[in-house]
């Protein structure tokens, strides 16, 4: 009986996750489904905390539930009022999809059962922890992200940059929001400095404790989203013609500095991204600082939904179509 009692919270959490996930994907009302998705993200960050992944709990709250949620909520505004529902799949194909999903679920569940029931084999975790003192940081997740697998993180920053460049080439930003009333406005004036402070703290503490560039960047972006929602169109991003270069440099700063450090250490006779151990801590903090700014700028731009005024030197009003009738 005591077994069941200690298991109860986890069973409950797992059941709620599946239930909320199911409700999210099966709701026919878009608003409802987005709201459920945000709740799902918050529940997920509890699961991360339960699974001893506090870095992920922070990131999920800021990125998964927070920014994805904000992006989806903003996108709800774009939906045409009575959007014609496109044709769904024919029935036989729906049945096929159901069969496929069910059989994949069974196969995956069976294999996970087989593999995970046994005591965990020596995976790479032990190696990661024993090399920790040579990594320059003491938070193992940061060590993986910015040292052992720094190359993954470099490419991941490139992914963020690519996505946001795709967004800006697709069209101009959404119109801004109405100026907020005095209450919200003063709340934002309080919250934004706090968020900036929190971002700085997350960035700094990431070396030893949960936190780091991604959580910090997302927090900064959240500050920008708040400014935008309260009617301040520039939302903290450099604006206009003078700011164009600043914005472009900020966006490329994360990848750029990463590359500079990676290539710079080659100048000392080491391999690409092979930091001298004595310098690792400092170099990692340097990279993370640039990455925080770049991620924040990218996510803030993504929330605006397109290129801001003055992104191009001669911004055309309408993007020209391909030379085809």
């Amino acid at each position, binding site marked *: 009986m005591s077994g069941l009692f200690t298991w109860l919270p986890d*069973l409950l959490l797992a059941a709620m*996750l*599946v239930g909320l*996930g*199911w409700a*999210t*994907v099966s709701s026919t009302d*878009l608003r409802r*489904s987005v709201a459920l*998705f945000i709740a799902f993200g918050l529940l997920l960050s509890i*699961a991360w905390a339960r*699974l*001893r*992944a506090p*870095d*992920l709990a922070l*990131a999920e709250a800021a*990125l998964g539930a927070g*920014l*994805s949620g904000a*992006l*989806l909520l903003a*996108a709800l505004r*774009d*939906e045409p009022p009575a*959007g014609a529902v*496109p044709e*769904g799949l024919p029935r036989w194909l*729906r049945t096929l*999809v159901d069969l496929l*999903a*069910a059989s*994949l*679920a069974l196969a*995956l569940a069976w294999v*996970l*059962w087989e593999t995970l*029931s046994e005591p965990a084999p020596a*995976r790479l*975790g032990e190696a*990661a*922890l024993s090399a920790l003192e040579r990594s320059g940081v003491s938070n*193992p997740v940061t060590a993986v*992200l910015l040292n052992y*697998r720094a190359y993954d993180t470099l490419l*991941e920053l490139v*992914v*963020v940059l690519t*996505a946001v460049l*795709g*967004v800006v080439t*697709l*069209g101009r930003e959404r119109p801004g929001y109405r100026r907020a009333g005095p209450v919200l406005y003063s709340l934002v004036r309080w919250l934004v400095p706090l968020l900036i402070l929190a971002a700085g703290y997350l960035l700094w503490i990431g070396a030893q404790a949960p936190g*780091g560039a*991604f959580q910090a960047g997302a927090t900064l972006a959240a500050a920008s989203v708040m400014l935008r929602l309260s009617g301040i169109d520039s939302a903290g991003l450099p604006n206009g013609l003078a700011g164009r270069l600043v914005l472009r440099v900020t966006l490329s700063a994360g990848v750029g500095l990463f590359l500079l450090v990676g290539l710079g250490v080659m100048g000392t006779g080491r391999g690409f991204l092979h930091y001298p151990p004595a310098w690792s801590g400092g170099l990692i903090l340097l990279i993370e600082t640039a990455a925080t700014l770049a*991620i924040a700028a990218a*996510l803030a731009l*993504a929330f605006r*939904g*397109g290129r801001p005024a003055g992104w191009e030197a001669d911004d055309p009003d309408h993007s020209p179509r391909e030379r085809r009738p």
Partner: protein
Amino acid sequence: MSLTLLYALTGTALFLLGLRATLLHAGLLARVVALNVSGAGVFLILVAIAYREAGQPVDPIPQALVLTGLVVAVSATALALALHRRLIKEQAHE
């Protein structure tokens, strides 16, 4: 049954629920939400693999992979939504 297994199976369920919904939904926004749920399922599997009972250190590698995956998911969501918005505009012009 261990905690790892419980959450790995939960992740499996979410992965395939999301995958199925992505294929079956017709509207873009609903598909993007479903994709995100599906992705969360895969992340849950990875983090469950990393879990160890209290007293033993957890495996940081899958956790770092999931952090990477989260950022990729947000980026992809942003691009999909921007494409969708542009498409709606084009359709309104016609």
